[in-house]
């Protein structure tokens, strides 16, 4: 197969290298777990709970087991024979491999049918029946605070995070994390303020819907287990499966090829524990591929409620802010407690406010579990605080841009946690957005029933910390280079970026470098591909590994008394007498971090800040309430782009994804917690016809001084400002203020009536 053309262009960094795997992707030959078939492989199909909360009284698998072609039907009873305590999770060990004693949401896996023919397995699933003693259920995150319906009898923190330890053994609560921050004197200053504004906002539950649905395959021998999985976190999978089985890490091997999208859906344990146990029970390879429908019953984005209150002085300075956020975590915590804490850090927004209180709660409910989705909670927060900002500005009779400028958080000033802002080009991003969106230019509505409006919003994020990345770079006897790293390329272009970084160090074309995909037997540890952390953390590790390899080559040159420009191939030939040997460079990166104190304050909350702002021009049809985005501008601080084209497409893609979450995507649950629209026929994601008439994306000139070649993450940044920018534009157009997502035509029309 054709490879990308070899380039001798330098430098490598700052060049829009086409994705290394481009030809594989346009010819349909890229490797995904979906393609994998192993000899003797069984397919697993899942039987799921039909009730939101209940004790399992009986599971009848006899008819399924009797169906011709069924290899075996497995329930938690068989799982427990392999793993006595079959509960997993990154924050709480609360999620059973298959429902055990209780079910906690509609769609929870209860049993699995194994068969060589997936159609037979599926048919058999329909022959299983289960009886439950139904329990009271809770669905709303605010109600969950005080509800008598308790999702988990006892809380079981995983022990990984110190701020969750105090939850150990707690009963009679649905709170899975409460993050509190107090800075200055918010209560007093709120009392003294000239004006006080209080609003409440809501976001809906949505799903990532990667077009490659979740898929995992496990194969076992007596002493080892190999898991091929579409995962963003292979190192975590290895450690967690090893823990569950009581095996050392070196007996578990996790391989990850390309992913057909991830967006946070493919993190931690999803199908991996299940296929691992099934392959051990069956002693044959087992594959589970979810359908698109089943994905909706696996992991989602947190619905949330945010109460925000601000006190403003006579000059329009925000002097105090109270934030209270409730996160709907669903039935299992997944990474929700991290979302709650880390996003809690920035809940008051990119503003310089002396007196702040933040209370952020992760709640268990009887809905599909929620985890990370492209922003780790930030899009929910920006939606609220930037709508709130505009509402205040308009009430105060101030220009929304000027009001923001007056209060903007500037470099060198402490943010809510007390951490001083560094390398966060908030003001530059806002200025550039204002210029690109022609803020001052009057808008003319095309007709009496078609009203134009314009809105902006700016948000920021503290990258999740502390996390670790390791990398290895080898230089072979012919001078060619291989990078080994456990970052998953799920479309964000990490392979290409890592090759550019290594290439920059080694003065080699990125296109000539091979990237070895995650294989935990081979590639070193990485925390996970999430939260826009990889380019910064793994980028630093790859850079260090490449520098280490280069140092070894130079040492060989000195040792062998060769000139400094002696070609690498000649160095090895002289050293080993033939084309032989290689050098292995290693790099390990973990940034500094200080845990928040009792008041939620820390002088080092994050290794870098991400800044994203959006401006929207829209048209509202006053007869139908329909919104059309005619122009969307996204501006960001991404540090110095390693690959400008990929950066631009990341911003654009993230904004388009967020457009769906803003205008129409919503999981509809009925009063019994049953999801009513778990398919693309009823759950619409953005298509070509939803793309704004004009979409413009720009990274401002900036530098992250601690990043590899000045770079930092970008995967989530484009999502931050989209929802409030559009809500603010709708208000500008027709005077309708919506405080709940999505901004549907119905909701607007109702208010226009």
């Amino acid at each position, binding site marked *: 197969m*054709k490879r990308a053309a070899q380039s001798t262009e330098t430098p490598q960094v700052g060049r829009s290298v086409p994705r290394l795997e481009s030809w*594989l992707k346009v010819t349909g030959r890229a490797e995904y777990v979906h393609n994998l*078939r192993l000899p003797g492989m069984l397919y697993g199909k899942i039987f799921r709970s039909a009730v939101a909360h209940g004790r399992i009284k009986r599971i009848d698998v006899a008819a399924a087991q009797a169906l011709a072609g069924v290899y075996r039907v497995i329930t938690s009873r068989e799982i427990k024979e392999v793993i006595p305590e079959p509960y997993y999770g990154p924050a709480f060990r609360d999620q059973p491999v298959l429902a055990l004693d209780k079910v906690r949401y509609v769609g929870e896996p209860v049993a699995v049918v194994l068969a060589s023919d997936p159609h037979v397995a599926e048919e058999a699933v329909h022959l299983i029946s289960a009886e439950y003693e139904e329990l009271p259920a809770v669905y709303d995150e605010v109600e969950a605070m005080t509800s008598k319906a308790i999702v988990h009898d006892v809380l079981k923190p995983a022990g990984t995070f110190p701020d969750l330890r105090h939850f150990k053994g707690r009963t009679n609560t649905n709170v899975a994390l409460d993050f509190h921050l107090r800075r200055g004197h918010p209560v007093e200053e709120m009392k003294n303020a000239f004006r006080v504004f209080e609003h409440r906002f809501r976001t809906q539950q949505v799903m990532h819907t990667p077009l490659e649905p979740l898929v995992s395959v496990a194969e076992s021998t007596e002493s080892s287990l190999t898991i091929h999985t579409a995962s963003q976190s292979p190192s975590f999978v290895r450690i967690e499966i090893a823990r569950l089985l009581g095996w050392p890490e070196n007996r578990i091997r996790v391989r990850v090829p390309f992913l057909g999208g991830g967006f946070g859906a493919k993190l931690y344990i999803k199908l991996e524990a299940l296929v691992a146990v099934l392959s051990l029970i069956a002693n044959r390879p087992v594959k589970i591929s979810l359908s698109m429908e089943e994905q909706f019953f696996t992991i989602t984005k947190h619905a949330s409620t945010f109460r925000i209150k601000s006190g403003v002085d006579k000059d329009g300075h925000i002097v105090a802010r109270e934030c209270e956020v409730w996160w709907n975590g669903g039935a299992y915590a997944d990474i929700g407690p991290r979302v709650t804490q880390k996003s809690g850090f920035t809940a008051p927004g990119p503003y310089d406010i002396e007196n702040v209180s933040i209370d952020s709660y992760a709640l268990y409910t009887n809905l599909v579990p929620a985890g990370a989705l492209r922003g780790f909670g930030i899009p929910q927060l920006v939606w609220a605080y930037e709508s709130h900002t505009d509402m205040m500005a308009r009430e105060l009779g101030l220009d929304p841009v000027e009001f923001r400028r007056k209060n903007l958080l500037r470099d060198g000033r402490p943010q809510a946690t007390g951490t001083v802002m560094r390398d966060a080009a908030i003001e530059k991003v806002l200025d550039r957005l204002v210029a690109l969106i022609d803020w001052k230019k009057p808008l003319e509505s095309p007709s009496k029933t078609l009203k134009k409006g314009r809105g902006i919003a700016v948000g920021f994020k503290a990258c999740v910390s502390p996390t670790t990345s390791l990398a290895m770079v080898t230089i072979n006897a012919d001078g060619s280079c291989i990078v080994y790293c456990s970052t998953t390329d799920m479309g964000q272009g990490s392979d290409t970026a890592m090759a550019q970084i290594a290439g920059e160090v080694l003065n080699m074309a990125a296109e000539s470098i091979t990237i070895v995909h995650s294989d935990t037997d081979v590639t070193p540890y990485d925390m996970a591909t999430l939260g826009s952390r990889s380019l910064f953390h793994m980028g630093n590790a790859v850079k260090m590994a490449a520098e280490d390899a280069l140092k070894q080559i130079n040492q060989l040159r000195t040792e062998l008394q060769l000139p400094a420009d002696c070609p690498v191939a000649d160095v090895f030939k002289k050293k080993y007498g033939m084309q032989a040997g290689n050098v292995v460079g290693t790099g390990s990166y973990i940034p500094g971090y200080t845990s928040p104190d009792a008041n939620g304050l820390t002088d080092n909350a994050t290794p870098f800040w991400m800044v994203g702002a959006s401006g929207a021009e829209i048209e509202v049809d006053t007869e139908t309430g329909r919104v059309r985005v005619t122009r969307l501008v996204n501006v960001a601080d991404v540090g110095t782009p390693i690959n400008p084209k990929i950066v631009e497409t990341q911003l654009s893609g993230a904004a388009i994804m967020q457009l769906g979450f803003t205008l129409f995507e919503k999981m509809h649950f009925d009063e019994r917690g049953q999801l009513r629209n778990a398919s693309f026929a009823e759950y619409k994601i953005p298509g070509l016809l939803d793309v704004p008439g004009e979409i413009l994306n720009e990274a401002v000139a900036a530098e992250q001084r601690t990043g590899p070649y000045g770079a930092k993450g970008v995967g989530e940044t484009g999502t931050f400002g989209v929802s409030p920018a559009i809500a603010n534009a709708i208000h500008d157009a027709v005077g309708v203020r919506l405080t709940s997502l999505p901004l549907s035509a119905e909701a607007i029309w109702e208010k226009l009536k």
Partner: protein
Amino acid sequence: VRREIRFRLNGEAVSAQVAPHETLVEVLQENFGLYGARESCGQGMCGCCTVLVNGRAVSGCLYLATLTQDCEIQTIEGNAEPDAVQQAFVEASAFQCGFCTPGFVLMTRQLLDEHPDPDEDTIKHYLSGNLCRCGAYPEIIEAVKLAARKRRSA
């Protein structure tokens, strides 16, 4: 009950034993090791499973394999050398994860066969049955325009 069907696959005469419920995507994957057409939504809403049957794009995850008796089937793997559309998709960075890309490439070929010089509205409408969750749509539109120019100048 399986029966033998014969058809031409990417120009080659082939046969397969297929069950009545098996879809074209399944048969391409299980019998021929072709994975470029892939099931995603399973409802014909996303276009990831696009396959050409007698030159017309169909949703291979819904199209029953037994219906392809004597048909000419073309998949993304059909051409040995990348064509103008594939080149344009690479040059315009018109994909991220790549899972939807084969479907877009095949639909774009059909679009350009019918409309050699499509305007933006035509492109958006014609390809509206293909979804890209990475949101590479602006680049896809650029790629289609670029492919049109490449084909016209070829």
